[in-house]
């Protein structure tokens, strides 16, 4: 499914934060959306998920304007996880079942196919062993994996994640990003991920979209990003290293 942002202009609390943003997401890719705090990343995500509708320009999913879609149709095409996740007192299996909501009747009766998808989402995220555990008893990393399983159960071609590795330790971050990459490869999902950690962005993303001064200042891959000195220009930092050996960020004097 092709996702196109075309000339998006949007404001947050009456202040213009996005000006003429145009780019598109390749099918089966991971696109990192980066920018300084207040650069408009969350506003752009809100436009995509339909929470914000008062913007100019169009967002097209396979040529269809998302503003013309009803919420249920949109929920079958785009799934989204916010940065701050709640701690509901439900089991992991119940949480993953919530992901099937756009497909279920009012009574919530699950079909055989729903059950298969839920089991698969638990398996892919390594949460099968935690299926009967309560979400509010899990560690931060496990809870994020549980919510990711819910998102996978929603089975949408486009998955939007807002800082999925925030507050996780180094090992959990690697595991989570490896899991996302595996989903992309095996299931052909398209990911749009809001990220802050530059080495992680350069290592994991196929495409990088940089928001700076209300505009899209860069859109391309990691090598192009480094070649154009985007970290220096937009974040006032220098990046050393390579994809194989990893990257290090050094602040500029």
């Amino acid at each position, binding site marked *: 499914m092709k996702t196109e942002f075309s000339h998006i202009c949007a404001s947050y609390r009456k202040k213009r934060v996005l000006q003429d943003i145009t780019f598109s997401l390749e099918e089966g890719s991971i696109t990192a959306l980066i920018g300084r705090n207040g650069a408009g990343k969350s506003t752009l995500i809100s436009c995509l998920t339909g*929470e914000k509708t008062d913007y100019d320009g169009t967002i097209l999913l396979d040529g269809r304007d998302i503003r013309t879609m009803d919420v249920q149709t949109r929920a079958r095409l785009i799934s*989204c996880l916010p940065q701050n996740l709640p701690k509901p007192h439900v*089991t992991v299996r119940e949480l993953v079942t919530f*992901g099937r909501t756009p497909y279920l009747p*009012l009574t919530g009766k699950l079909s055989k196919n729903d059950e298969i998808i839920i089991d698969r989402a638990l398996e892919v995220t390594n949460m099968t062993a935690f299926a009967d555990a309560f979400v*509010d008893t899990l560690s931060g990393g496990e809870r994020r994996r549980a919510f990711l399983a819910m998102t996978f159960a929603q089975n949408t071609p486009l998955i939007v994640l807002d800082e999925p590795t925030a507050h996780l330790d180094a090992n959990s971050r690697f595991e989570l990003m490896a899991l996302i990459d595996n989903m992309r490869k095996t299931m052909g999902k398209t990911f749009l991920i809001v990220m802050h950690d530059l080495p992680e962005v350069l290592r994991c993303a196929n495409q990088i979209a940089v928001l700076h001064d209300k505009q899209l200042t860069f859109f391309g891959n990691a090598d192009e990003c480094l070649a154009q000195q985007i970290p220096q220009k937009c974040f006032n930092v220098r990046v050393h290293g390579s994809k194989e050996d990893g990257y290090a960020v050094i602040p500029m004097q």
Partner: protein
Amino acid sequence: MNKEKRSFALLLWILFLCMLLCAFLGLRFGSAELSMGQVIRGLLRNDPDAIETKVVWVIRLPHVIGCILCGMALSISGVLLQTATNNPLAGPNIIGVNAGAGFAVVLLMCLFPMQYRLIPLAAFIGAFLCTILIVTAANKAGGARVTLVLSGVAVSTLLNAGISFLKLLYPDTSIAYNYFSAGGIDGVTFSQMLVPAVMIFITALLSMLLANRFNLLCLGDSIVHCLGLRARVLRSIALLLASASAAAAVSFAGLLGFVGLMVPHIARRFIKGSDLRKLLPVSAMLGAMLVLLADLFGRTAFAPSQIPAGIITALIGVPFFFLLLFQRRYRL
């Protein structure tokens, strides 16, 4: 049927039988104690003129059914409110049910002192209108859960001030209001309960039908939106159902406190998780039992004096409330 479904069905049957037992105790004990045989003969109406038939059909049975309806309605209301506000300490008073009903009753007594038969209707309208006012104000102010609680506090405080003001202007209304605010099912008739019973049945049915959707409210507005539902609409529906259910109970039972707060927490001990499809029926039956037992205790413990059930539930409820506050490990 898998093991989990079987054990839940068994739990429902056990609770149902316990509720029937409590109802039977309610029929048997009171100011005039009847034997088991007399209760059964009275229920079967073997002799329509017999004293036990009259006691059972005119006094005890409406009373017991009133307790069951009231307990069920307030518990269902409590479950919906705690889910909609994601606040384990929410009860019907948080959406202004008590303040709205109380104000309407005092206003009626001031304007039409002889129309005491209209008290149930006034209580229902007052409670329901107050909820609509609070939900509308909260939605206008952004619709967040905390806004709802704050709107509830503000409107309830205003109405309570109104109650005090009217009671000062019209001191005669105090007696009617005090009796109403104590909460109890004394003297209730089948005809008085007919409309509230229909309303309670409809709200219970709709709550069960939408329970699967209401379950999602624990995920927060943003995730609910991404799952293809409108959290604010869903929350408003839950609140209106909660209000209709509690208002129906208040209309014939007065301000019976703490049932809506306590029972959902007790019910959560019986089921795994917070699935409303399980929590609603379990809470309804536990609520019925609690009100039946509170009422029975109030009628028999200090006989011949009769203590309204509302006072007994408050006596149990306040320590329970503190227990909830102190028990940090227990979550909604």
